[in-house]
């Protein structure tokens, strides 16, 4: 009897079969994978499984406890929903990338040591990169490059931290971080980059909106939530995280006000919502960690529902800017209602999932008497409703009629959104279902008269404010500079600064001076330009060439090996079929003869044998 099958391995190994299947069988197979992964998680008993000894170190692939289990459950559920949503997609690459990506996050969640964690961590980054690139336009190419560069940087920080940690403690076990100094901070930064904590957050709002429609649904669920998991595991009670979490919650809200791209607006609200989880980790009490976990669970469901809703509009209309949409409710009412269920869930309306999860974090802050955190997190939740529950649906589904007339999205998309919506309401109505799987025992009742009335007061009066200031909120066709400005623009701006003012100062300064200052500045500018052209562009080109080369090799491989194999199999089958066809004469006596001959051979065999 096999003691444990790694749920991530089911998805990762299962992905290899995807290109060989077709039609209905392929669809059924793909839905089977997350179901099997879920079954593997349900079947396993808590404890340590899958231990491999390597170079005197123990690699633990299966650390199964209440914390890793709850993340495992929701990852499997989400993979199931996401694959239904993407059922109409034609590109195998997208499915493979999605399966590897989810498999990577499950591997990271069940990893018991840093090396295993790191390997799956990188698998996630590279698999998700293809969910961006497969959209296949210039914007997604560039966003993908920036995405992977940031994650490589994060991965290097993490790896450096792990090495320092090992040399300080002699252990690669992944538990609460016991070191201080550089090891602590490098691992923390590696985690914070994936959690999209500002100033390391720009990659998220940069890349997610440029991903494929199905890709964005997957991406919004896994990277940041895996990061929340590792933060809970390694950094619970690290006070600075309270600050960071609260700043994050507000940061996302401010950018969401300015945003015109619907998917980017939702991406900024991921940052905002993950802020609650990070703050919960920082508070570090049992209540707070339960809250962070519960909110991660609920967040995966409602945020993917929101991305699916906007994705459906994008799929049907080809547009995602608020300024270009409006009045869609007439032709997509079902999508609108399902989207709104996600919107009310993220806004923490009573009877929806956010209400029972977000309030745990805020209550934990209350219990720890951190008044400013309570006030600012409440402020941010007003902002959440303002954008995700009011602004976005108002300008997409109502607002000024854009004249777009379309249809509801394909059935598989509606079914996926329906499952998400049912789960969002289910958790909101029956929170114990979620509370029972949380890492610590829950002693918390969300539905009290005081809590419900206060929450409704905050939400309804936010709505009042929204409609009063509606004119001020009209979306503007702009983009907002985020911290990615530093790696997208600063180099060019520096060049201009170096050339412009220095050149104009040239007129006023003596010749001697000018040759020195200007010469140096120009030299600096030209060196930096040369560096830009030579090194940076060189690297980018090199990466481009390598990619093309890899594509060429894989193309050749495809043509000669795969096609060759397919052809030879086909030839064999044809030959074999021909041979059999000749035997099938349709004449009864021939068959009888073969039958008799067979009997003789069998009997002969027996006779010789005994």
């Amino acid at each position, binding site marked *: 009897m096999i003691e444990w099958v790694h749920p991530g391995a089911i998805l990762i190994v299962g992905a290899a079969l995807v290109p060989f299947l077709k039609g209905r069988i392929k669809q059924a197979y793909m839905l089977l994978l997350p179901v099997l992964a879920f079954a593997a998680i349900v079947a396993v008993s808590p404890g340590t499984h899958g231990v491999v000894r390597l170079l005197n170190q123990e690699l633990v692939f299966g650390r199964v406890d209440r914390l890793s289990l709850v993340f495992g459950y929701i990852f499997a559920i989400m993979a199931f929903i996401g694959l239904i949503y993407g059922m109409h997609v034609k590109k195998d690459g997208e499915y493979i990338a999605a399966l590897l990506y989810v498999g990577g996050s499950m591997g990271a969640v069940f990893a018991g040591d840093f090396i295993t964690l790191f390997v799956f961590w990188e698998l996630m980054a590279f698999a998700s990169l293809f969910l961006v690139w497969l959209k296949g336009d210039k914007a997604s190419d560039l966003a993908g490059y920036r995405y992977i560069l940031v994650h490589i940087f994060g991965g290097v920080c993490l790896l450096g931290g792990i090495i320092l940690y090992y040399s300080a403690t002699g252990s690669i076990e992944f538990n609460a971080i016991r070191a201080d100094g550089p090891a602590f901070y490098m691992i923390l930064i590696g985690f914070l980059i994936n959690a999209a904590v500002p100033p390391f957050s720009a990659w998220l709002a940069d890349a997610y909106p440029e991903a494929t429609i199905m890709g964005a649904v997957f991406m919004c669920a896994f990277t940041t939530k895996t990061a929340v998991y590792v933060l809970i595991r390694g950094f619970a009670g690290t006070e600075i995280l309270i600050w960071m979490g609260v700043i994050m919650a507000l940061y996302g809200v401010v950018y969401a006000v300015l945003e015109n791209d619907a998917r980017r607006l939702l991406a900024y609200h991921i940052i905002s919502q993950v802020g609650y989880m990070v703050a919960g980790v920082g508070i570090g009490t049992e209540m707070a960690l339960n809250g962070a976990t519960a909110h991660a669970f609920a967040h995966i469901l409602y945020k993917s529902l929101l991305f699916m809703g906007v994705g459906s509009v994008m799929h049907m209309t080809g547009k995602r800017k608020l300024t270009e949409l409006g009045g869609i409710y007439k032709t997509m009412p079902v999508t609108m209602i399902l989207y709104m269920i996600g919107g009310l869930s993220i806004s923490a309306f009573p009877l929806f999932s956010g209400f029972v999860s977000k309030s745990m974090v805020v209550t934990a802050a209350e219990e720890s008497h951190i008044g400013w955190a309570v*006030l600012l997190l409440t402020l941010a939740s007003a902002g959440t409703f303002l954008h995700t529950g009011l602004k976005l649906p108002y300008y997409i589904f109502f607002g000024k009629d854009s004249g777009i007339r379309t249809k509801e999205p394909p059935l598989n998309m509606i079914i996926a959104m329906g499952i998400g919506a049912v789960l969002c309401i289910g958790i909101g109505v029956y929170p114990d279902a979620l509370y029972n799987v949380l890492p610590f025992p829950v002693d918390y009742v969300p539905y009290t008269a005081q809590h419900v009335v206060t929450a409704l007061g905050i939400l309804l009066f936010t709505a009042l404010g929204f409609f009063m200031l509606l004119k001020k909120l009209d979306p503007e066709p702009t983009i907002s*500079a985020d911290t990615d400005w530093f790696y997208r623009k600063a180099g060019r701006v520096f060049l201009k600064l170096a050339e412009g003012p220095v050149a104009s100062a040239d007129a006023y300064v003596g010749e001697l001076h000018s040759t020195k200052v200007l010469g140096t500045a120009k030299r600096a500018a030209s060196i930096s330009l040369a560096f830009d052209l030579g090194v940076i562009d060189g690297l980018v080109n090199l990466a481009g060439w390598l990619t093309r080369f890899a594509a060429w090799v894989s193309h050749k491989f495809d043509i000669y090996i795969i096609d060759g194999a397919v052809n030879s199999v086909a030839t064999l089958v044809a030959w074999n079929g021909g041979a059999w066809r000749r035997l099938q004469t349709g004449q009864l006596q021939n068959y009888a003869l073969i039958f008799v001959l067979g009997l003789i051979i069998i009997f002969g065999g027996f006779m010789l044998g005994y």
Partner: protein
Amino acid sequence: MKIIDWLADEKNRGFVKKACYAALVLVFGADFFVHRHHVTFFWDGIPGYGAVYGFVSCVVIIIVSKAIGHAALMKKEDYYD
């Protein structure tokens, strides 16, 4: 679907508005009668705190964000091209 059409219909605008105001008054009023089982901070004891704080939050978020945006962050769509 009928409900959405009915709500969006110009003719019913007045009724819908009145219903919304009624809901606001109801929620604000209810807060005066609710039993407060835990008062951690002073604001938890103020009746109508949620409503006032929600409204103030909304206005502050919109005005402050737009101010920051127009002052520094918002760029033309081809800014990075």
